């Protein structure tokens, strides 16, 4: 009997005990009817080959282990970045349970959203009644300042019209006539979570800006961060930089406080977020900057339509991307980049120089959202690394072209390949056939790490199996320092592990590296 009250074994050690190992071996032998071990071993080896890779990459219909989620997740994340805003997702209710769980598992924080709980009758007759009753219930129970409506694919397939439904609900006094209910249609069968983000932010801006007179306030800037699992660390870091520069700015969508509430005995269903008054005022800004272009394509178009200048970035991280971001800010605001920031830049460069021998020539596979992959590939090249595989399941052909342009700009990108629309099962073949030193992605990458032995660095949403990384910034020079350190830790830990066998590798287990 392996278990004892003195030393309680949970699943990790318990099932390694002989009683359980024997039991499982017997179960397999007598009841599971498995394939013979040799056949399994052969197939396993076959999946490592170029031949399998070609079959794998030729897939047209099947998607296995994609690195993307659906639109409404992005809409719910977006809405969480506005003052006292409740997400109301129109359609089936299970979806909302999924978005909330997904966000909570990453942020280790509450994630609130309601559903209009449509069922079979609503599928036949439409979900108007659900909208009318639902808005009334949400308004009364959760005391929001704004309700942001998005849709699940069910409501999209049956063609429910949010605009007219919301008008109807207001006619029936579900919420006061002047209560803010912006909306976005977010079909799950178009694009991904980054498009849902785009749609919701645009929906909110349109709601407040439409028909309003714009009086340009020179030098003021709106900043749209995009869907970002690291918003807690990033937004705060960016605000620090902006404050140092003395720029007059408004974050449009800022979930950094919502997903980082303190524990002091009070549960805050709402915290932080862009003030509604500030959203209205933001119409007058001279320019709107997007930190993630592929998250904000439609929103930026809209900003241009109302007369604002726009500029966009790809998750400004590392040296040159941060330089560009700051210089653009400086150009629009007319504010100089202060000396303190120049010193910060110097410290990041200093750190990179200190560690360059460990980074030069390292090969990477990078996957994630399009802007993030662009950012990481660029930073990796700044450290002398080679971004061998750059993959975005939700990457478009435009992204692919832009990536190729980036890679062509550096000798470190000359052997790099771009994989738009591919999934992590494709990545598995890539890692077996053209191995790399390090894999950069999210928690789902742990299966690739296990299968291929490529060390995984978690820098991208969602991160479920490591805690609190998202509380630290990746953007800016400070963020670059964090990314650099994370990569180096992975390299050194691996080297120590590989040289730690006493009596075999007493050499190479160096105290100073």
């Amino acid at each position, binding site marked *: 009997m392996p278990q004892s009250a003195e030393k309680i074994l949970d699943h990790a050690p318990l099932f390694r005990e002989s009683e359980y190992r024997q039991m499982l071996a017997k*179960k397999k032998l007598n009841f599971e009817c498995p394939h013979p071990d040799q056949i399994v071993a052969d197939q396993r080896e076959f999946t490592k080959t170029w031949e399998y890779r070609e079959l794998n990459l030729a897939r047209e219909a099947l998607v296995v282990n994609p690195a993307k989620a659906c639109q409404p*997740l992005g809409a719910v994340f977006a809405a969480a970045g506005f003052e006292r805003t409740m997400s109301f997702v129109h359609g089936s209710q299970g979806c909302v349970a999924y978005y909330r769980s997904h966000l909570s*598992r990453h942020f280790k924080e509450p994630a609130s959203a309601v*559903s*209009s709980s449509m069922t079979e009758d609503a599928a036949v007759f439409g979900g108007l009644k*659900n909208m009318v009753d639902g808005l009334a219930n949400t308004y009364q129970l959760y005391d929001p300042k704004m309700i942001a409506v998005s849709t*699940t694919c069910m409501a999209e397939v049956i063609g429910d019209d949010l605009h007219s439904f919301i008008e109807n609900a207001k006619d029936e006094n579900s919420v006061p006539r002047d209560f803010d209910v912006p909306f976005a249609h977010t079909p799950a*069968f178009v694009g991904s979570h980054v498009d849902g983000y785009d749609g919701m932010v645009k929906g909110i801006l349109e709601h407040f800006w439409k028909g309003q007179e714009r009086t340009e306030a020179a030098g003021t800037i709106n900043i749209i961060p995009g869907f970002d699992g690291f918003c807690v660390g990033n937004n705060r870091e960016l605000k620090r930089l902006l404050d140092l520069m003395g720029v007059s700015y408004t974050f449009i969508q800022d979930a950094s406080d919502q997903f980082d509430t303190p524990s002091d005995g009070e549960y805050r269903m709402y915290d932080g977020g862009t003030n509604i008054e500030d959203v209205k005022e933001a119409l007058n800004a001279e320019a709107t900057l997007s930190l993630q272009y592929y998250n904000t394509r439609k929103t930026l178009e809209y900003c241009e339509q109302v007369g604002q200048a726009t500029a966009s970035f790809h998750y400004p991280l590392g040296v040159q991307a941060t330089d560009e971001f700051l210089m653009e800010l400086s150009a629009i605001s007319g504010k100089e980049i202060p000396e303190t920031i120049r010193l910060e830049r110097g410290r990041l460069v200093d750190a990179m120089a200190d560690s360059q021998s460990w980074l030069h020539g390292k090969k990477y596979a990078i996957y994630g959202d399009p802007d993030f992959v662009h950012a990481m590939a660029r930073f990796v090249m700044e450290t002398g690394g080679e971004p061998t595989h750059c993959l975005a399941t939700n990457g478009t052909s435009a992204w692919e072209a832009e990536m190729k342009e980036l890679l062509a700009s550096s000798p470190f990108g000359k052997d790099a390949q771009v994989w738009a629309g591919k999934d992590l099962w494709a990545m598995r073949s890539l890692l077996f056939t053209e191995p790399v030193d390090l894999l950069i992605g999210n928690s789902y990458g742990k299966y690739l790490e296990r299968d291929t032995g490529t060390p995984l660095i978690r820098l991208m949403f969602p991160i479920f199996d490591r805690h609190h990384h998202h509380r630290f910034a990746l953007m800016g020079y400070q963020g670059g320092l964090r990314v650099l350190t994370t990569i180096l830790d992975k390299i050194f830990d691996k080297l120590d592990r590989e040289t730690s066998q006493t009596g075999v590798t007493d050499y190479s287990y160096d105290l100073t590296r």
Partner: protein
Amino acid sequence: MSLEYKNDGALHAKLVEEVLSQYPDKAAKHRKKHLSVAKSGDEAGEVVSECDVKSNIKSIPGVMTIRGCAYAGSKGVVWGPVKDMVHISHGPVGCGQYSWSQRRNYYVGTTGIDTFGTMQFTSDFQEKDIVFGGDKKLEQIIDEIEGLFPLNNGITVQSECPIGLIGDDTEAVSRNKAREHGKTIVPVRCEGFRGVSQSLGHHIANDSIRDWVFDKKDIGFEAGPYDVNVIGDYNIGGDAWASRILLEEIGLCVVGNWSGDATLAEIERAPKARLNLIHCYRSMNYICRHMEEKYGIAWMEYNFFGPSQIEASLRKIAKHFGPEIEEKAEKVIAKYRPLVDAVIAKYRPRLEGNTVMLYVGGLRPRHVITAYEDLGMVIVGTGYEFAHNDDYQRTGHYVKNGTLIYDDVTGYELEKFIEGVRPNLVGSGIKEKYPVQKMGIPFRQMHSWDYSGPYHGYDGFAIFARDVDLAINNPVWGLYQAPWKESPSHGRAMAAE
């Protein structure tokens, strides 16, 4: 051992009244039927008879129900754990993504080669699939699975919302492709808008086993006299393994484990067994009733949470098989008695009298109660996401007078109830975890065992006791108040043991 206590029914009734007063009238009228305070009959010691809430009806919109959908019930619960089959999340990408690897149905196998549990297979529907239908795409997907994952022993097609709305014929595709590839292919009509919760998805999944798996192949297997199936154990954190080891020790032979760590063969052979042992009654009673009707296999509910229930269950199960097994069962009970005594001696003094509120799915809100009571803890409130009337009837055997009962609780209600009751521990899900902890109240996830487990069986009970203790007696609860702000701390931490 049954702990004797009574709950503060008057306070609970007041809390119910208070939350209802905050709803619009129409919603209050609906919600009223789902909330109650358990009352016993006239005779002392009688089973609490009134947990009579309405259940298994539609959630009202806009209130933040904690429920999921039929797809979650089928792909997430019943089918997902069958490890040697590929389960296609058929429709847009999200459903499969959010449920990917989240239920902790443990298994052993070579993932991606002969086992597919922690993978996400999706047809990733695009607009054109909605407009033109997805049947052609599904055909191609099945062919591609056969090419890339040839050691799969079958495929299920888990329909997401759009499939049923656009009129795809996944049954025809499955039938044709099954013939072509000589494989079991099961279409499951678990579109998320069907029914009112996960529950209909369980039922639909059960029916799909009946219609698409049973009696389709010649099963060259003859059961012995002690062959049983374990039904409704999903092997979360290894639960089914910690149960199987006991069943084998008392001399039984587990032919099939449904569906944690199961292979298709285990499902196919099930009708040959002598007895169905059902743990999660809510999600799998349907197939037990079918097997009883069609194959004459009796079924028996049991409970492997906590020593009181484990002992009672082992005796009940053994009785079915006669003296030889009964004798072995007594030996097993005696063998584990010192472990149980040591665990209780260690943890009961640290947990005695602590109050617990539960809100889980369809079984655990009653099944785990005695495990807490074995540790001297008191259940003050409990409720189900997707129980039916027969579950609430069974709940009466577990709860004490005055217990707060909430069916399909809303986020608002749960928060207010917890605030009003201030229990020492809440056991619920990931969506509830962080709000509760912000309030300074210890919490354990009771769906995923909070990444721990197993909790079933004697080995599991020790882990359960440890986890409850570490949740309640962690020093962090005493740090919530900044010392320069005057307010008593809620914490009452003890040093770790």
